[in-house]
């Protein structure tokens, strides 16, 4: 082979290789152009995701106050020891080591497991909360031994009034899977990043949006092993709003104490504007039990108690109104031009329907000569049997529904019940049975199918006090939403004369000869009221009701509605004492305690 031939080949191939390499260089430039310019957005995002951890800042939940700035739901700083479940596979060992520093009992572990089971995020879970100062100090000095245990400062809900007012106040609890679905449906899920708790019942539930606020964010720079290096940006959270309630906490306590150990409910309204001054459902329970998820033991205790503490009787308790319905039945009659004074009956103590079926008055022997005013004052059943029959169930129910019976009052609390105004149509549908005249008769004295909630009774009583005011009972002070809602409702239309007669009847209830005469003794103001007794248990024919002989849970419910003072009423109240016997004697004194407090307080102002 020729040397020059080799050189010729070599130079040619050298040129080829040079061009080949230049081509590769060009392709590399294209590659960088593609990655750095065309795909820059994608990789910048990736670099951001790598290095920036977005940490939500949970907003602080708004506080709840009563109308006089007494705090009902507070936030308290609380230290807890928390572990991230993924990082601590071996729980028992961590607990064992931790126990040497901080006391951890079985309940704590049970609670941890319960929260872990329902946890949907990778947030840390408390293994021990509410650290005492001593425990806090112990942990801090030994914290180097527990690299995976975090000391967390949490703001925790605290109900300083304990069980008082629990039914309207409600409670918060950890967000459950079900809550998450609800939040998703409302498009609110993002608002709850970093939040562990949500309102479950009562005001805590009803005003969740306002109380919760909106989360903030923190951009934290992290390195490749996830160690936080510094905070780059903070978008602060919008804290939840504080809420003032219409409740007067002192009155609430007086009312609750007045119930002593009895079950029942009480709703006190300002009849002028519908503000709920007291809202009692007895017995109560401690909302604090729910905050970290209630234990099975406590839940069973509450849920299976015969006293049904979890039931909010004020809006969910359905009771036959008994004689407390009579003033409203009277309005129905008078508005239909029936039984107008001076119309009187002579009451023999019973009423015969169609000369065949006999309905007894509560008073054996009867009340003698009775007009509609006296009929209310002495709660004359005979008068109302005949009245109801003559009026008919349709007209009666129409007036009752004008007073708000059978309809939800629209109170700003969750899951209100609407009660029941029964008629032929309803009975046909429900039982496929005929409506009897006797059923109309007993509706006239508030027995039978008719069911009301205590709040409906309170609202209806307010409407007697001020028929020209259109009000909606409500628990949040100065609610704008409510003002709009009220503007859409119209007041009940009753003639002045009708109202005058009915009011007179109710005023005479607390006068001598009235069914609650003893309430009216020795007081500076006048109470207009109506007592009621609703049967829990139907007496067999010929049987006589004997308070002494019946077991407690079969005793009649005592009912009491009232407003005071009778001129320019400032407060209206409806009270039910379950198995309390006669309305005037058990429920009446509770009303009086409230009125005493409120009216003496009012005049001081």
């Amino acid at each position, binding site marked *: *082979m020729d040397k020059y031939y080799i050189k010729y*080949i*070599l130079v040619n191939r050298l040129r080829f290789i040079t061009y080949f390499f230049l081509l590769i260089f060009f392709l590399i430039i294209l590659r960088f152009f593609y990655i750095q*310019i065309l795909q*820059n957005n994608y*990789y910048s995002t990736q670099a951001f995701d790598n290095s920036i951890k977005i940490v939500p800042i949970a907003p602080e939940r708004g506080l709840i106050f009563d109308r006089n700035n007494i705090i009902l739901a507070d936030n308290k700083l609380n230290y807890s020891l928390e572990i991230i479940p993924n990082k601590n596979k071996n729980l028992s060992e961590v607990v064992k080591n931790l126990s040497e520093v901080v006391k951890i009992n079985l309940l704590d572990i049970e609670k941890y497991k319960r929260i872990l089971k329902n946890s949907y995020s990778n947030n840390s879970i408390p293994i021990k909360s509410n650290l005492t100062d001593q425990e806090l100090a112990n942990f801090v000095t030994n914290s180097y031994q527990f690299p995976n245990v975090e000391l967390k400062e949490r703001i925790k809900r605290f109900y300083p009034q304990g069980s008082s007012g629990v039914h309207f106040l409600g409670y918060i609890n950890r967000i459950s899977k079900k809550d998450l679905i609800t939040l998703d449906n409302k498009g609110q899920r993002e608002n709850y990043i970093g939040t562990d708790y949500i309102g479950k019942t009562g005001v805590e539930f009803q005003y969740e949006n306002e109380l919760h606020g909106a989360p903030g964010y923190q951009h934290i720079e992290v390195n490749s092993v996830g160690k936080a290096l510094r905070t780059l940006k903070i978008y602060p959270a919008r804290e939840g709003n504080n809420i003032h309630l219409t409740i007067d906490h002192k009155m609430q306590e007086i009312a609750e104490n007045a119930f002593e150990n009895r079950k029942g409910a009480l709703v006190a309204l300002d009849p002028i504007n519908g503000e709920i001054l007291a809202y009692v459902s007895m017995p109560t329970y401690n909302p604090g039990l729910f905050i970290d998820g209630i234990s099975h033991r406590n839940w069973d205790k509450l849920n299976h108690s015969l006293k049904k503490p979890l039931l909010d009787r004020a809006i969910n308790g359905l009771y036959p109104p008994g004689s407390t319905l009579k003033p409203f039945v009277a309005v129905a009659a008078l508005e239909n031009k029936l039984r107008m004074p001076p119309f009187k009956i002579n009451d023999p103590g019973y009423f015969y329907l169609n000369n065949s079926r006999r309905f007894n008055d509560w008073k054996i022997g009867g009340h003698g000569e009775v007009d509609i005013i006296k009929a209310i004052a002495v709660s004359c059943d005979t008068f109302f049997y005949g009245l109801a029959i003559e009026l008919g169930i349709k007209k009666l129910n129409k007036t009752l529904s004008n007073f708000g019976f059978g309809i939800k009052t629209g109170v700003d609390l969750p899951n209100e019940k609407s009660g029941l105004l029964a008629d032929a149509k309803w009975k046909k549908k429900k039982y496929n049975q005929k409506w009897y005249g006797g059923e109309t008769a007993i509706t006239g004295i508030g027995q039978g199918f008719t069911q009301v909630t205590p709040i409906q009774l309170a609202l209806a009583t307010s409407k007697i006090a001020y028929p020209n005011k259109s009000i909606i009972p409500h628990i949040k002070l100065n609610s704008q939403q409510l003002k709009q809602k009220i503007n859409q409702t119209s007041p009940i239309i009753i003639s002045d004369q009708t109202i005058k007669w009915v009011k007179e009847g109710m005023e005479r209830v607390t006068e001598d000869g009235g069914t609650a005469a003893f309430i009216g003794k020795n007081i500076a103001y006048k109470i207009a009221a109506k007592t009621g007794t609703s049967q829990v248990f139907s007496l067999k024919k010929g049987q006589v009701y004997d308070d002494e002989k019946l077991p407690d849970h079969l005793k009649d419910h005592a009912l009491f509605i009232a407003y005071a003072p009778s001129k320019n009423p400032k407060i209206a109240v409806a009270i039910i004492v379950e198995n309390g016997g006669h309305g005037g004697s058990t429920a009446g004194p509770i009303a009086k305690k409230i009125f005493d407090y409120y009216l003496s307080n009012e005049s001081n102002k």
Partner: protein
Amino acid sequence: MNLNSLQNFIFREIDRPLFGSVILILLIGVINLFSANQQDISNLISQIINILVGIGFLYLICNIQTRTIVFFAPWAYLISIFLLIIVYFFGIESHGAQRWIGIGIFNIQPSEILKISVPLILAWFYQRTALRIDYKIHFLAGLLIILPFYLVLKQPDLGTSLLLLWGGIIIIFLAGISIKFLISSFFILIISSPFIWNSLLIYQKNRILSLIDPFSDPLGAGYHSIQSMIAVGSGGIYGRGWMNGTQTKLDFLPETTTDFVFSVFSEEFGFFGVLAIIVLYIFIFYRCMWMTAKMNDNFSRLLSAGLTISLFSSFIINIGMISGLFPIVGVPMPFFSYGGSSMVVSLVSVGIIMNLYLNKSLIAN
């Protein structure tokens, strides 16, 4: 001696355009290393020492006679093979591979030295056999490549061994082997590839697999590749600024001073910075190839071309690796990556090319 004559003295035996552009890259490399190193001064100082030692060798080699180089060629080859064997038995292990020999305070990497000694022995061999080059000669040349290739592959160092193989094949190609033969051997390679695949270690297989889709296993084999691409891609047009790259600063990028040193540069200086560096490298490459073409004998041409190809194949593989074109095989960026052996070898290569070019008239036919 005025400044001008001092300048003349210093650059007497040096190709100024080539030397100037290499110095420029070295400077940029040091500045980049400062950031890549998280501002660790000690590493920076040892890199500067590497550069100074390299420039000393470069300068020395420029000023020796070409025949000295020819004389040393077989010895250099034998010594490198000997060192590889020592590595095999006594080498220092790191990252699952045994590549270094400890000598006093520093370690040397014999596989780097082969980047010079393989082209040297091939050029020497073809020069010795200049007038009777046939298939037997090419076959023997092939054996001279296979031996170090195998030893380096066993370390294991897939990147460097393939680089040696590739550089050697190009020299054989330049030496005149027939195209037909090359193409047929290529097909033989394709056919035998399953056997080669089976002889690879798991981590090498994973690396190759991760090339096909690095995102298929983002936390495993593809992790380095992905993090490097994120660094490069997030650099954008202008870069994130010197010492401001989060991928580098927050340790997402692995091996920021060696294999991924150019990812750091790409992240912080962006496309324009990358373009400037690539243009500089292209200039150096073109200058070397131009000088090679100007040489008058085949020893010089083969050696000069071999060294240039070796340097720039390393460059291409490294830059292709950090931009996700190639698998992560651990090949340094010449003049840029931290490392004494690589730096000295790169500068010595440039020194040899300069020597051959400057002495081209002396060995004219």
